[in-house]
């Protein structure tokens, strides 16, 4: 069974694969000339995010994957300008030559997730704790609006307040406002060294520990909590990246001490001083009666924990396991981790589904992977969990999901206010007055 958005791609009346800005503009104009709506896609790993696009017009697809060049890298200034369809992992390989990186680590990079796709979906990984999200790292953009207007904002220097910061507007807009063609990004030096510590901890213990770590001088690069611990990724594409994955299933057993939950704490920085920082971290754990174990030899551990946030789905039109899986993202305050986890498990038990929780605990971002039973049960779980999380002042957004879920639960949830929808609509109309870019995909039916 095809997901509706994958269907849109398959049924598209025209498909464009521009390789330059001029071609990207021509594609947008041609789609308009043919009176079609436009779905922009990169590798396709997040095509399911947002609501199902809807609209009277037939569809054109603009595929960004030929926009795949690193245009300019200025190592001395730690900036780079890149075309939006470049796979993130290819960009990282090129930057690594100069010992630099774009400090984002979203899931699915190994499967070809593009820099622009990560940006437009505002996707992120565990290291966001240390470096901020991609919205904090994009300092300039060139976009094409639905009427063919090419707009540039920001620039090529890190510090810059000239004009509106539209770079932030495109981030997370899921292709509903403009086609992002080029991005200038801020880079970081690749960390000299890193350390990893695994700690079995229940959600309650983990919450107290996380808050204490945040209040301590230990600066963490990542601070994750998962129940159960992510095991070796099953996906063959991941296996193909030639990274050996040592099985960590043994942790599942040890994790019983923590009710099946595990903390993964990563430190990065200069080699000198890292030992002392690990000691400080272990001290905090000891104060909480938690057993911290170094896990530095475990290659692929960070990879497994990162990929777990995306569930097993991800590929365009993927069949099999991913079909029955719902991935929902909650955002709360870091102090609410245990409450979020408790709410999920009550909701899952009530609906008879399995639910795993992978949490960027230091950031208050939590991904639930719901499997088993049928879409109605998934929908009931999401609805109950969402009610709980919203009562805490947070939000729940559904990302990947089985086809049957649409119509049973709104992937966005209730907008926080009518004023917000009104203002968002007026921004959408100002930039895309004919409503061509993925109409219906965004919050508020935009």
């Amino acid at each position, binding site marked *: 069974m095809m997901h509706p958005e994958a269907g849109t791609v398959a049924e598209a009346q025209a498909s464009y694969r521009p390789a330059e*800005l001029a071609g990207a503009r021509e594609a947008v104009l041609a789609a308009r000339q043919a009176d079609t709506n436009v779905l922009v896609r990169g590798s396709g790993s997040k095509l399911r995010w947002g609501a199902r696009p809807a609209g009277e017009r037939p569809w054109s697809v603009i595929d960004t994957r030929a926009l795949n060049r690193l245009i300019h890298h200025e190592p001395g200034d730690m900036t780079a300008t890149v075309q939006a369809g470049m796979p993130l992992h290819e960009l990282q390989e090129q930057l690594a030559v100069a010992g630099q990186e774009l400090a984002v680590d979203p899931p699915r990079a190994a499967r070809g997730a593009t820099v622009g796709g990560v940006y437009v979906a505002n996707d992120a990984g565990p290291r966001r704790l240390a470096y901020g999200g991609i919205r904090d790292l994009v300092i300039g953009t060139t976009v094409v609006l639905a009427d063919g*207007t090419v707009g540039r904002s920001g620039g*090529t220097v890190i*510090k810059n307040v000239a004009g509106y910061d539209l770079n932030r507007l495109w981030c997370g807009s899921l292709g509903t406002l403009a086609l992002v063609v080029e991005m200038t990004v801020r880079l970081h030096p690749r960390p000299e060294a890193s350390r990893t510590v695994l700690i079995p901890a229940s959600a309650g213990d983990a919450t107290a520990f996380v*808050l204490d770590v945040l209040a301590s001088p230990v600066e963490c690069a990542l601070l994750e909590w998962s129940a159960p611990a992510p095991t070796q990724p099953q996906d063959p594409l991941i296996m193909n990246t030639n990274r050996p994955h040592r099985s960590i299933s043994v942790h599942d057993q040890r994790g019983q001490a923590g009710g099946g939950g595990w903390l993964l704490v990563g430190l990065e920085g200069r080699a000198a001083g890292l030992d002392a920082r690990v000691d400080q971290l272990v001290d905090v754990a000891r104060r909480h009666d938690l057993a911290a174990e170094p896990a530095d030899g475990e290659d692929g551990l960070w990879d497994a924990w990162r990929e777990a946030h995306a569930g097993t789905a991800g590929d365009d039109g993927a069949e099999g396991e991913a079909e029955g899986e719902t991935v929902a993202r909650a955002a709360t*305050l870091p102090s609410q981790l245990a409450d979020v986890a408790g709410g999920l498990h009550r909701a899952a038990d009530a609906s008879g589904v399995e639910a795993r929780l992978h949490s960027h605990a230091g950031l208050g971002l939590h991904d639930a992977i719901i499997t088993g039973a049928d879409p109605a049960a998934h929908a009931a779980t999401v609805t109950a969990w969402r009610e709980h999380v919203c009562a805490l002042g947070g939000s729940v957004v559904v990302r990947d999901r089985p086809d049957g879920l649409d119509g049973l639960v709104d992937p966005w949830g209730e907008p926080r206010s009518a004023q917000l929808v009104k203002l*968002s609509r007026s*921004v959408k109309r100002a930039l895309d007055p004919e409503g061509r870019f993925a109409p219906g995909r965004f919050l508020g039916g935009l």
Partner: protein
Amino acid sequence: MVKSELQRDLLDILGADGLVTEWAQRRTYEADGLAAYRSVPALVALPSSADDVAAVMRACVRHGVPVVPRGAGTGLSAGALPHPEGVLIVMSRMHRILDIDPVNQRIVVEPGVTNAAISRAVSEHDLYYAPDPSSQIVCSIGGNLAENSGGAHCLKYGFTTHHVLGCELVLPDGETVELGSSTLDPPGYDLRGVLVGSEGTLGVVTKITLRLLRRPEAVRTLVADFESPAAAGVAVSAIVAAGIVPAAVEMMDNLAIQACEEDAAAGFDVSSGAALIVELDGPAAECDAAFAETVALCQESGSTAIRVADDPQERALVWKGRKAAFAAMGRLAPDYFVQDGVIPRTRLGECLARIAEMAAEADLRVANVFHAGDGNLHPLVLYDSANPGEGERAESLSARIAELCVEFGGSLSGEHGIGVDKACSMPTMFGADDLAVMDRVRAAFDPAGRCNPDKVLPTPRLCGEKPGPYRPHPLEAAGVIERL
């Protein structure tokens, strides 16, 4: 008459002590920190609550009158320049701290709270608010949000936009909307991100939720002297290339050092060609290691003397000297223009040489104080307004320096904003279409164009009919990137 009716309406909302009507009193608000631009507002409103602001806004809509928000009035681009027929909404009475959540490291404040008061309010929890503009003792957090203000320590910790999680905004039509949230990534477009740095043109901010940081375990500071700013620039590049991310890297040239020394006696060597202040912070063990490396890199880059300012008092003195730099210019010349431009850090030496040439041609002195880590220059053009024509020469030199930064591939402004001052220079950095897209976003918030009109984006009224010359970005000129 419209004004008297509006005045009656505002009086009902704000009471007599919340509305300034007398000309002499209104005049005290005629300029912000850039006093070259002056205009007396028709009325000055002093709201005490978000409801007041919304009611004032609605009254202005009814009477078709423009509004201009104002914080503490320290802005340096005439962003808070009043409109002669409009209402100036001054946020100084809205200075309450509404909520502190030390556990989640967040604070909710009204916009009139000063930047420094925020860090003071949370210091007992070992937390602080990171962006630290030199004006932090007086400038308001609402003004910081509107300008996306920076400070010396933004190199490592980011600018205002990285620390504003959410806010409440009274839109130009008088409706109130919450943007962002106390959590990360609330569903919807990141309109909070658009609002930060919009210079009061999208509405009036009435409440702000901020992220706080834990005080670093260790702080190490040094002052390294160099023969010239270009030599100091080499050291900066070496530090960055070594993978060290200092909390702050600030530079002063000889003229600036002289002024600071006279003003603050902070112990800078007045014979030095350039002083580089480098501050590292973070976990103690890491900080110490990186500090030793930094000292070595400064020496290898030709530093003539290095002073380590490790005790807190000495460190405070160094920063007092640096932060007094603008004020201290009064010691060197009766008048000066502060410029604010950004260049790619790697082109520092080249750019300073050009500025020196331009200064010599104009027969004026230029002192340089800057955030060297991120290439944010603050050339101070000194002049004496008593000498006929000197003011004009200085102004023109200052404007050309900003445009020079754009030519070098940088920006017209790193932190002081565009306001009125640079609106007509925007076409040197952005093409007409780029500006049109920004204008479309502005109109989505403010279709009637009533909020802080004639700021940020060039208008025919402000700049004449002819748009300024757009010069292609250097990468564009070189054919590396393309406009179309």
